[in-house]
């Protein structure tokens, strides 16, 4: 079967966070979160712990919405989406995320697409997983240049949701909403607490740091045999690159 690839490790890490969910939503162009959600759903079904709705907006087949493009946001605002994934051009130590660009707003030095749905989703989805593969001082910064959505809110602001964890190519961090601070939970194979510190532009805690566990053989087999063919249907480029599959 061979070792888990980097992508398979990330799929496994993300799937762990979704194990108990009833509804996981995945935005556009997110093959790794999409695969993680489908994996978590399959494992939950096997454990006979009930159904999991996986809504992948990018995929006609896995997009269950019939009330137009606003329905995802409506469902989320009602608290009915358990987990969602957000990225960021920049993410800072308070878990503020920036999807708009680098430099001074509005002209910016480098403009990126924009905030998408983050300025609602980050507030209302109980478990938002920040997922950014590139882990560098350029992406993980002291303070973002533009707050697409803040990591925490003032008392009194309706904020049932927020950041749960940050997953990168190098590690997994938890986020403590009370203290507005990240805590290194596990480093991926080849990384150390020091290498993470070096690659990170913000301060974080680092007690009880483990190595990120690779998926066991059963899970790895499931990813390759059961999940990969599904991913092929709507992320053909990704499935080709990671698993050598062709549509």
């Amino acid at each position, binding site marked *: 079967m061979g070792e888990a690839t980097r992508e398979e490790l990330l799929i496994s890490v993300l799937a762990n966070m979704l194990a108990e969910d009833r509804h996981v939503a995945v935005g*556009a*162009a997110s093959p790794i979160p999409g695969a993680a959600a489908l994996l978590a759903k399959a494992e939950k079904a096997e454990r006979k712990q009930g159904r999991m709705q996986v809504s992948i907006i990018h995929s*006609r087949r896995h997009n269950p*919405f*019939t*009330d*137009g*493009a*606003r329905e995802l*946001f*409506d469902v989320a*605002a009602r608290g009915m989406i358990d987990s969602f994934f957000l990225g960021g051009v920049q993410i800072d130590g308070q878990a503020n995320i920036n*999807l*708009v*660009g680098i430099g001074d*707003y*509005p*002209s*910016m*030095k*480098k*403009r*990126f*697409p*924009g*905030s*998408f*749905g*983050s*300025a*609602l*989703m*980050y*507030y*209302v989805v109980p478990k938002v997983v920040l997922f950014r593969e590139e882990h560098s001082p350029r992406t993980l910064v002291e303070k973002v240049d*533009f*707050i*697409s*959505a*803040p990591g925490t*809110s*003032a*008392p*009194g*602001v*309706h904020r049932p949701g927020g950041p749960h964890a940050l997953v990168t190519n190098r590690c997994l961090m938890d986020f403590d909403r009370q203290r507005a601070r990240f805590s290194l939970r596990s480093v991926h194979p080849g990384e150390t607490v020091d290498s993470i510190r070096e690659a990170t532009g913000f301060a974080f805690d680092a007690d009880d740091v483990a190595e990120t566990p690779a998926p066991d053989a059963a899970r790895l087999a499931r990813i390759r045999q059961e999940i990969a063919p599904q991913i092929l249907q709507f992320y053909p*480029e990704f499935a080709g690159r990671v698993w050598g599959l062709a549509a």
Partner: protein
Amino acid sequence: MTDVDHISVEEIAEAVTDGCLMGVPADYSGVPMAVTRALIQRGARDLQLYCLPLTTMQGDMLIGAGCVAGVEAAAVTLGEYGLAPSFSRAVQTGSIQMQDSTCPALHTQLQAVEKGVPFMPLRGLIGSDIEAHRPDWRTIPNPFSNEEDPIVLLPARPLDVAVFHAPYADAKGNVFIGRQRELATLTHASRQTFVTVEKIVDGDLFEKEATAAGALPAFYVSAIAEAPNGAWPLGLTDVYPPDADELRRYAAAARSPDGFADYLAGQGLSVRTAA
């Protein structure tokens, strides 16, 4: 008898007048690329794009061609083909006014128009830099709460015109939109709505409840143009996929102003020279 006028793609481009506030659909909703080319052809200028909630190649081309004065959107991007180069340049040089929003806010401001109310509330937003740059939004204390509970009210944003592309219309002018119901809200929120379709089919979508469910009623539609392949090179759900090669070609070409101009020239179009 049809209940809706049939006009040409070029006539639609004429009806989208310079300076108007134009509703623009996302890539999954049916993007009117034939009309987009006709707008560039006629040298449209000062368009204000209201994106529901984002735009891809349509917005980037219109911006690059010099047709756009402002954009309100949750994102402008070529998606898997990368950043939107003309957009990024235009923001960086300040040649367009960018009003950053977030998907649900763009939906909500049209829902308020749809419902005939001056505003609608939305959760989230508070403490973001989006909100900080939107003096047109108002935060009030939730009047139904006894505790501190600020909530943002978004004003209704009526559009001058909406244009989208759909698989087909029936003989009466009812348009099949399927489950892209954001197109119904877009239409309800616009003074005029023009639709291009792959084809006009016989019959009446309202004859059966099963087909009526996916219909936008003809009485909302200002005029229809037949435009086979009218979303190309973008795709049209269940009809044809995006033309990945062409999109890649565009993404590469648009990286420089010259490359963009060459791409337009390849389609018999040119960048509008400044007034």
